[in-house]
């Protein structure tokens, strides 16, 4: 990753922290894999599987809890970010040649393809399924003098194993699969196999089947054996 890109990402996070909204958002997507480096300190984890696009996804897990009103396009405009409306529905993305920021919310009920308005942040967001799995178990990683919230690596990896099978684009599916396997291997390296199993047990059976199917495709016997061994007691 370019130094310029990393520095811009940190500046965005610094500004979010200063504006008081960093605690209301979870950094998801392939950029989480970059920030897992600290979590996996001492293991062989190298973030090598995460071939990243410039997209950074932020999950606003509970828009009603946002206390500070911050106009994000204004907050970042002097850095050169511009508002771009995507698709026929007009999803907002904040774009810069080095980074593209996108905001997501949990899809509830029947779901909709309309953008979800976030008036307190001056933007709208995309509502997506399965994201509650990422927000239900999070970790905090210290960066400089503030903390960034990330999904727990086990949740992140299992989520990727579920969604890679729903991807329409093959290249994206391969990318998701690779990063999921890399993270699961690193968790095993770190001695956290029990956490993988615990997270796996917490998800609905339908999702569990999808995870198993995904792992069978990748022929990851070691990880599979952790998930399908029966619990004692």
């Amino acid at each position, binding site marked *: 990753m370019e130094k310029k890109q990393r520095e811009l990402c940190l500046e965005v996070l610094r500004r979010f922290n200063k504006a008081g909204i960093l605690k209301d958002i979870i950094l998801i997507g392939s950029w989480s894999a970059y920030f897992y480096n600290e979590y996996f300190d001492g293991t062989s984890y190298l973030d090598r599987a995460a*071939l990243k*696009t*410039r997209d950074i996804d932020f999950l606003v897990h509970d828009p009603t809890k946002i206390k500070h009103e911050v106009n994000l396009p204004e907050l970042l405009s002097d850095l*050169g970010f511009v508002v771009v409306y995507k698709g026929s529905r007009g999803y907002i993305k904040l774009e810069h040649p080095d980074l593209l920021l996108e905001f997501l919310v949990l899809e509830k009920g029947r779901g909709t393809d309309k953008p979800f308005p976030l008036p307190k942040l001056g933007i709208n967001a995309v509502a997506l399924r399965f994201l509650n799995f990422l927000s239900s178990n999070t970790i905090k990683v210290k960066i400089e003098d503030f903390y960034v919230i990330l999904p727990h690596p086990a949740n992140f990896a299992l989520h990727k194993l579920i969604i890679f099978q729903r991807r329409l684009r093959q290249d994206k599916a391969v990318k998701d699969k690779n990063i999921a396997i890399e993270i699961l291997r690193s968790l095993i390296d770190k001695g956290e196999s029990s956490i993988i199993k615990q997270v796996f047990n917490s998800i609905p059976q339908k999702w569990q089947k999808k995870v198993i199917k995904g792992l069978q495709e990748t022929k990851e016997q070691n990880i599979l054996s952790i998930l399908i061994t029966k619990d004692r007691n």
Partner: protein
Amino acid sequence: MGVIKGVLKEELENSHDMLKSYQREIAKIKGCLIRKKIGKRYYYYLVKRQGGKVKFIYKGPISEQVKKAYAEQRKMLNKYKKLLLQVKNQIKFIKRALRGKETA
């Protein structure tokens, strides 16, 4: 290789969108404020392109606040122009990379 090509194609699409956005932002900025010294006094003009010609529009006396706003606008214009150039170079680079042939 499919993954890399896929990422590059996505990035190319993003860069095209971004190119349009920066061009739109630059077009929104209508002219720059300049100062001319005539005799012993300073006069302010708004310089802008109208068709193929550059027009100087006399602004009369202006407040510090307006001057500051124009200076800020100028700063943003320069920034957007620089970023637009960066996006154009990215597009060139990605297109070149996508044209490359795989050898067995």
